[in-house]
């Protein structure tokens, strides 16, 4: 198979995502008062409603509606005041009623968008030919088929026949959507349109015992845990505006940061509270007709999302280039074997017999309700990133990473309070590097790991004053995490303060140059690399306390 970069020169990948997010932070399920928890014993949190017992009726969870309205507002969607629940029928034991309560043509949130900033190596995935006029044509021709491509429910949504009900679906306000332009450093910003976010209930969890990798084939028995049945779930469907696996990954990351900030879900891809299916098709560059798409499942990490799509794009290209045809099918990503395999072929569209749920009255959201939801939306990651960049003067990439996680952001703000420039950046560096690494090795999160913002602030000041080196900072971080002591005290007690006095360091430099005359000569002969070795020797000689930057300067001066 060709490499992705080769494939994307000739082929345009058209990618749309369907992202399911369980509203894990709600106390109760979507249509009943059962507890909405992940860790209970199987079938502990069930009642007549979520078990679909005869005569049971659903009552919508108002908090869930608040959550989806917030999700819509935070992703630039138009919140629909009038929408309703539909029943989607299919016979399978994971749905106790044999229909799923979901939404129809009009979802609570329609027609939003998120702007992706694509930087670094990932930006190179989009080839030069995918900018400018070509991209304008690409977007226009993809959106014309948007519904058909991006959602399996499309065939059930009889556009036009519902008349007034579809008035809210008139389309996007695309005036503020800019086409991507590549900057000198290769980065670009691209708007990704969101078709809809609708509300539905999750199905029960099935555990297949005895089969390979928990799959149903060859399983000797199937167990059903209805705890998850009826969990509030929101499904976001993008337009097929994504063109590279990197963009898909970034979209998912960005969405996750927004949902985390809204506090509507724990967004765990690992535990399945945030799940992503990818739809992808290929077409020759310049072609306006869409190719046949496949749907990818089991993309349960950011890496899986990227790698699964990348593999599938290359696979499709190979099939097409060999004159084969792509079948509309659902494929399973196998991360271990790094390949996708067929799950099922969709020969005909399933007939879900979608119709309005007569047990649930249509919604008529008031302006007050929507305003109340809007008022509860905290500062979103993009705004927070921009503020960190300007108010604290830290690097955009660090600001982005910190702002994306609400707890990390709160920790940063507490640590960097009153700081800006060098010490604030030092705080950011410590959080992004030291703290993140430390948290991987301990139980608990940032709020209960035992490290206080004041400690990080103090350590950052030492760094910013060049009182310690970054290597020393790493050591001090470990010590302060262990002891809970203030870094100043640790540094003083252990005599770790960095020496930044040229007068004190020059003798060390002289001594090293005398001892390492060969290397000194190499440097003079033009081998710049050897300077690092000499700095290392000086550091060793000073028992780690000399300022490495100053050693560097002094060495250069002495050797010139």
């Amino acid at each position, binding site marked *: 198979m060709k490499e992705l970069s080769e494939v994307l020169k000739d082929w345009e990948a058209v990618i749309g995502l369907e992202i399911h997010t369980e509203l894990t932070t709600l106390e109760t399920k979507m249509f009943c008062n059962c507890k909405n928890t992940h860790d209970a014993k199987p079938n502990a949190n069930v009642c007549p409603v979520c078990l679909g017992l005869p005569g049971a009726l659903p009552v919508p969870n108002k908090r869930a509606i608040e959550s989806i309205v917030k999700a819509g507002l935070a992703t630039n969607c138009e919140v629909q005041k009038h929408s309703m629940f539909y029943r989607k029928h299919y016979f399978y*034991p994971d749905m106790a009623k044999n229909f799923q309560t979901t939404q129809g043509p009009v979802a609570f949130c329609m027609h939003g968008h998120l702007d992706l900033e694509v930087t670094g190596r990932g930006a190179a995935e989009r080839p030069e030919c995918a900018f400018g006029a070509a991209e304008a044509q690409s977007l226009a021709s993809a959106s014309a088929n948007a519904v058909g491509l991006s959602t399996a429910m499309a065939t059930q949504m009889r556009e036009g026949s519902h008349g007034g009900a579809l008035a809210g679906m008139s389309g996007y306000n695309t005036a503020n959507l800019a086409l991507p332009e590549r900057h000198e450093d290769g980065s670009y910003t691209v708007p990704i349109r969101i078709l809809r976010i609708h509300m539905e209930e999750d199905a029960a969890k099935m555990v297949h015992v005895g089969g390979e990798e928990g799959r149903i084939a060859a399983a000797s028995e199937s167990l059903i845990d209805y705890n998850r049945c009826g969990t509030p779930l929101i499904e976001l469907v993008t337009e097929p505006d994504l063109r590279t696996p990197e963009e898909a990954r970034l979209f998912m990351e960005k969405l996750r940061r927004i949902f985390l900030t809204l506090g509507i879900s724990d967004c765990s891809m690992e535990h399945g509270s945030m799940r992503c299916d990818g739809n992808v098709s290929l077409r020759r560059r310049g072609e306006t007709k869409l190719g046949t798409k496949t749907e990818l499942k089991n993309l349960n990490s950011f890496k899986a999302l990227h790698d699964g799509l990348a593999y599938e794009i290359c696979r499709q290209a190979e099939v097409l280039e060999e004159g084969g045809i792509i079948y509309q099918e659902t494929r399973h990503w196998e991360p271990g074997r790094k390949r996708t395999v067929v799950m099922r072929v969709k020969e005909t569209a399933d007939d879900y017999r979608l119709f309005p749920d007569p047990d649930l009255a249509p919604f008529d959201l008031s302006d007050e309700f929507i305003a109340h939801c809007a008022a509860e939306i905290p500062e979103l990651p993009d705004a927070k990133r921009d503020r960190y960049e300007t108010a604290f003067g830290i690097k955009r990439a660090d600001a982005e990473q910190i702002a994306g996680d609400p707890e990390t952001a709160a920790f940063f703000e507490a640590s960097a309070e009153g700081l800006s420039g060098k010490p604030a950046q030092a705080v950011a560096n410590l959080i992004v590097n030291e703290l993140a690494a430390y948290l991987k090795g301990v139980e608990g999160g940032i709020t209960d790991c035992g490290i206080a913002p004041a400690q990080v602030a103090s350590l950052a000041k030492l760094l910013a004053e060049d009182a310690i080196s970054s290597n020393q900072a790493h050591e001090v971080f470990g010590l302060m995490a262990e002891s809970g002591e203030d870094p100043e005290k640790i540094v003083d007690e252990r005599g770790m303060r960095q020496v930044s006095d040229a007068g004190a360091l020059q003798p060390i430099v002289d001594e090293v140059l005398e001892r390492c005359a060969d290397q000194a000569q190499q440097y003079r002969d033009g081998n710049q690399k050897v300077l690092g070795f000499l700095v290392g020797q000086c550091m060793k000689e000073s028992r780690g306390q000399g300022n490495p930057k100053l050693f560097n300067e002094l060495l250069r001066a002495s050797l010139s």
Partner: protein
Amino acid sequence: MAQYIDTLSAARIAAGIKAGEFSAREVAQASLDAIAAREDAVQAFLQVCPELALAAADRVDAARAAGGELPPLAGVPFAIKDNMNLVGTRTTCASRMLENYESVYTATCVQRMLDAGCVPVGKANMDEFAFGSTTDSSAFHPTHNPWDTERVPGGSSGGSAAAVAAGEVPLALGSDTGGSIRQPAALCGVVGMKPTYGAVSRYGVVAFGSSLDQVGPFGRTVEDVALAMNALTGAGKDPYDGTSQDCPVDFCEHLNDPIEGRRVGIIPAFMEAEGLTPEMRAAVEAAARELENQGAELVEVDLPHLDAAIAAYYVIGPAEAFSNLARFDGIRYGYQEPDCANLDAQSSLSRAHGFGPEAKRRQMLGAYLLSSGVYDKYYYAAQKARTLITADYASAYERCDVILMPSSPRTAWRHGEISDPTQMYLADLYTISINIAGNGGVSVPLGLGADSGLPVASQLVGPAFKDRTMLMFARALERGLTDAATGAPALSVAPAFAGKGGELA
């Protein structure tokens, strides 16, 4: 002189228990005795629950002994249609599919009757999953009309109507999706009311057509029905049913108000409809004259889209039924086909063998009507018709307080007399449009037909949530037909059963 349970109204029983004339246990036992003596001939019940009944009665007696205030219907026995859950009973919907299904919770409507002091004596027979107008489609046995046991009691709440008409209980609950309370009430000569949609909770009542189903009471007097309505709605809307609404009225208040000066609508097309028998027509005309005599004004009203009602009903009803009955797949509960090779076979065969023919017919119809490409033509058209019919009624009520019409085009027919399902569907002509519009309706017995000697009746229907006004007119009719000398209502218990068992000790 011996006193029999079947001569006492619910109001009279509750008053007698309060006054210490008889105990709740005596009443419950009398009801159980009457059932024992009459069931062979009537077969109104699928289950009788003496232990639950006597325990509930003993609680009433204990409360009275303790000097506490008794709830309004304390000690009144009642029958429950077998599509309503009651813990301690099976809820079978008269289907093999649920033959052994034990209720794991209690329906709100049943609970509210219990809270009002009522004593549950058993689960009443019905058409399977409420699909039918005869109760003959019960998977277990037919129920016989107490006025002529060769004949059907109507349906689908035929067991509830027959139990009241046979004097086994003074009150019963039924459910009405297209006439399933009002039609059997008419055929059995009792009062049967379908309240406005949303007035009574549907939680715990096995759904047939969710947008059409409504629970309501049967009784032998209008006052008893009003008392039951108070019990069903008094606690306000049910938090477990998102379609239920507050209905904050006392149904007994104003029940005996004069109707002088009020207007009663008559739909000429209904009085001329093909299939309306002369005796039924005569009965409704006599009722119109009676209301006129009491000072009401008769006005003709027109419902231009009424023709579409039956067609709309037989789209919306089966579509919702298909969806509601999808859950019966034999996996978690209900009939499970043994020895199946795989999941598909198990749910297909469980459904094939668990459901009777009418239940299958309606679900297949619904599955077809909702399928891709067909939906627009039928379901969407039916919803439009529904909007028009609802608007027709609303504009008719600008000209009148209630509308008087037949409940059923004819009196009770013999078992097996109508075998063509579409002919059977037409028998619902007078009841269906009320479910389509979501308004209330009550069938009032008007004595015996001149030709058949069987009960005849008429129906009063009213605007949404004006059910009390409707009952006021029903009471006016009842008053007009009450024997002035004895004070007995026009019809009480079917004579073949009067005084058979059920003596109060």
